[in-house]
C-alpha cells in the first residue's frame, strides 16, 4: 500500500513520543505506532526494547512517556516512580497465550493436566523427573528434555506462578532461552522435548511443533486459541500485556493523548495482526473508561499477580 502523502492526515499535532520496555509488547506498540504515524505524520513514535525492567527504570525517572510491560509494575518500581513523582495510567492492551508444546514425533502426549505440569516443573523435580514414564503411567520410557523462556522473562515468571504456584520457582535443569525462535529450533530438533512459550510462535511454526492441550483440573482438555484465551476457558496459561502512560504528559502533550486514544481503539485489531490475542470488547471499554478518568496506580497492587484473576472484574471494581 502506498504511504500516505505528508499533507494527508491530521495536521497540527506534532512531537516525539518515547516508548520503551518489554520486547513482548513492542510488536503491538509498533503496529499501533505505524498506523498512528500514517494518520499523524508529524508525530514520531520510536519504540525501544529494554525489557520490562529496563523500561520501567527509564519510565520511572521520566526518560520515557510510555512503558511497555509484560507484567504489572512491581513494588520496587512503584517506589521508584513515587520517588521521582511519576504517576502513571496502567492499561491492558492484549492477551498473550502461553502454549505448551512437544516435538511432532511425540505421539503419546496430546493433553497434560496442570498437576502433571507442576510435577514436571516444580523445583523438587530437578534431577528426579527425567523420563516421560514418570509423568504419567503409560507414557513410554523415554528421556524428558525441557525447554522454556529465560528465567529473567515475564513469561517464565508467569508460567511458574501459574503452574508451580510461586513466581520463579522451578527446576533449574531445563534449557532456557530468551529468544522464542531459538526455543522453536530446540523443540523442533529434539524428539524428547517439552516446552512452553508465546502462542504466536506456535502459530507460525505449526509444522515443526505439536501443541498440547491443558486440563485445568476439571477434566476438559483445552487447546489455546483466540477464542479460548479471550473467553478465559484456556486457563491458567494466558496473561495480559500492558502499557503504562505517564499521567502528567497526557495532558501536557496532545500527541500523547492522541496516541493513547488511538492505541485503545485499535489494539484489538492490531494485536491480532501481530500474533497476540485481543482483549474482549468489554475490557477495552473498561480500559478506555479508566483512561478517560486518568486513574493512576496499578490494579494489581497488593495482589502481586495476574494469575487466575479476571481483568474484567478488576477493572470493573475500580469504577
Amino acid at each position: 500500500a502506498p504511504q500516505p502523502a505528508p499533507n494527508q492526515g491530521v495536521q497540527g499535532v506534532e512531537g516525539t513520543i518515547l516508548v520503551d520496555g518489554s520486547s513482548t509488547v513492542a510488536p503491538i506498540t509498533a503496529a499501533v505506532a505505524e498506523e498512528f504515524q500514517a494518520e499523524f505524520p508529524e508525530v514520531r513514535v520510536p519504540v525501544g526494547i529494554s525489557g520490562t525492567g529496563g523500561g520501567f527504570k527509564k519510565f520511572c525517572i521520566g526518560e520515557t512517556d510510555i512503558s511497555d510491560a509484560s507484567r504489572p509494575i512491581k513494588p520496587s518500581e512503584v517506589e521508584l516512580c513515587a520517588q521521582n513523582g511519576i504517576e502513571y495510567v496502567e492499561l491492558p492492551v492484549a492477551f498473550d497465550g502461553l502454549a505448551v508444546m512437544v516435538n511432532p514425533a511425540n505421539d503419546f502426549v496430546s493433553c497434560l493436566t496442570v498437576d502433571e505440569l507442576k510435577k514436571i516443573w516444580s523445583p523438587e523435580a530437578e534431577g528426579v523427573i527425567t523420563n516421560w514414564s514418570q509423568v504419567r503411567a503409560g507414557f513410554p520410557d523415554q528421556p524428558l528434555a525441557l525447554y522454556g523462556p529465560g528465567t529473567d522473562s515475564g513469561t517464565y515468571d508467569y508460567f511458574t506462578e501459574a503452574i508451580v504456584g510461586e513466581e520463579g520457582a522451578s527446576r533449574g535443569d531445563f534449557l532456557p532461552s530468551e529468544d522464542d525462535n531459538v526455543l522453536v529450533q530446540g523443540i523442533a530438533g529434539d524428539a524428547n522435548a517439552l516446552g512452553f512459550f508465546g502462542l504466536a510462535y506456535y502459530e507460525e511454526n505449526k509444522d515443526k511443533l505439536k501443541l498440547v492441550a491443558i486440563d485445568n483440573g476439571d477434566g476438559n482438555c483445552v487447546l489455546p486459541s483466540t477464542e479460548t484465551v479471550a473467553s478465559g476457558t484456556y486457563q491458567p496459561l494466558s496473561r495480559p500485556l500492558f502499557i503504562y502512560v505517564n499521567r502528567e504528559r497526557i495532558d501536557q502533550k496532545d500527541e500523547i493523548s492522541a496516541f493513547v486514544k488511538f492505541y485503545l481503539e485499535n489494539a484489538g485489531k492490531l494485536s491480532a495482526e501481530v500474533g497476540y490475542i485481543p482483549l474482549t470488547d468489554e475490557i477495552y471499554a473498561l480500559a478506555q473508561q479508566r483512561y478517560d478518568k486518568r486513574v493512576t496506580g496499578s490494579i494489581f497492587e497488593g495482589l502481586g499477580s495476574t494469575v487466575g484473576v479476571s481483568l474484567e472484574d478488576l477493572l470493573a471494581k475500580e469504577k
Partner: protein
Amino acid sequence: MNGLFANEDGRFAPRLSLRLRFGRLFQLLSLAAVTLGLIVLSVLILDIILNGYKWLRPEFFTEFPSRFPEKSGLRSALQGSLWMISLTALMAFPIGVGAAIYLEEYAPDNGLTRFIEINIANLAGVPSIIYGLLGLGLFVRGLELGRSVLAGSMTMALLVLPILIVSGREAIRAVPQSVRQASLALGATQWQTIQNHVLPYAMPGILTGTILAISRAIGETAPLITIGALTYIRFDLKGPLDLFTVLPIQIFNWVSLPKAEFQQLAAAGIIVLLGVLFSLNALAIVLRNKLQIRW
C-alpha cells in the same frame, strides 16, 4: 640429489627430504586453515543470501519497518548505521591512532605508561554490554545527549578503541628504528618524523585495525540496546542528536518476531549490512594494499 653434494662429512644430518615433507605438510595445513575459514564464511553467507535475496527490492531500502513483512524496509536502520559508523570512525580513529603514537613514540617507560598499556588491553575484554551501561550513565544521562546517535557513536568509539590502539601500536613498532634515525638526523622534529615516516609506513597495519574495529562496531547490538537505541523507527535521521536505530538491532528485532517472513527479512538485512561493511572496508583495503611496504 645426494650425489651432488657428495662430501657431506657426517657431522650434519640435514634429513632434507624429511624437513621438506614436513614443510609441505605445514603449507597444506596453513592453506587448510585459510580455506576452512573461507568455507565457513561461504556457507554462512550462502545460507544468508539464499534466505534473504528475494527481499532485496528497492522498497527494502526506502521503506521504514512495518508489521507487514512486504511493506518493511530498513531505511531508518541503514541511516542509523551509516551515521553511527561515520561518527564512530571520526572519533575513534584519531584518538586510537593518537594514543598508539603516544605509547610507542613518546611515552617514557614508567609506571603510568605500563598502567595505560595494561588498561587498554584489559578494555578489549570488557563485554560490550558493560560499555552499554557506561554509555547510558556517561553520555545519555551524564552529558544529556539522550538516546541520540551521537551518544551511541561515543559508546561504540570507546568499545573499539582498544582494537585500534593495540593494532596501531604493533604497526608503529614494526617501523624500523633506522628510519626514525634517518629522519631525525636531518633535523626533523619528532612529530615531523612521525607524521612523515612512522605513520605512513605503519598505515597498513593501522588500517587493518580500523577494518576490524569498524567490523566490530557495525555488528554490535547489545550496548546500543542498553543505551536505548530504539528498534522501531519510522522517521528519517536528521542529525547527530536525533534518535536512531541501527542495522543489527533491526535484524535482531526481525529475527525475534514469530513470522517466518521476518526471518528472511533479517537475512536480507544481513546482506545489506555485509554490503555496507564490504564497501567501507574496500576503501581501507585498497588503501592498505597501496601502502604496504616490504622492507
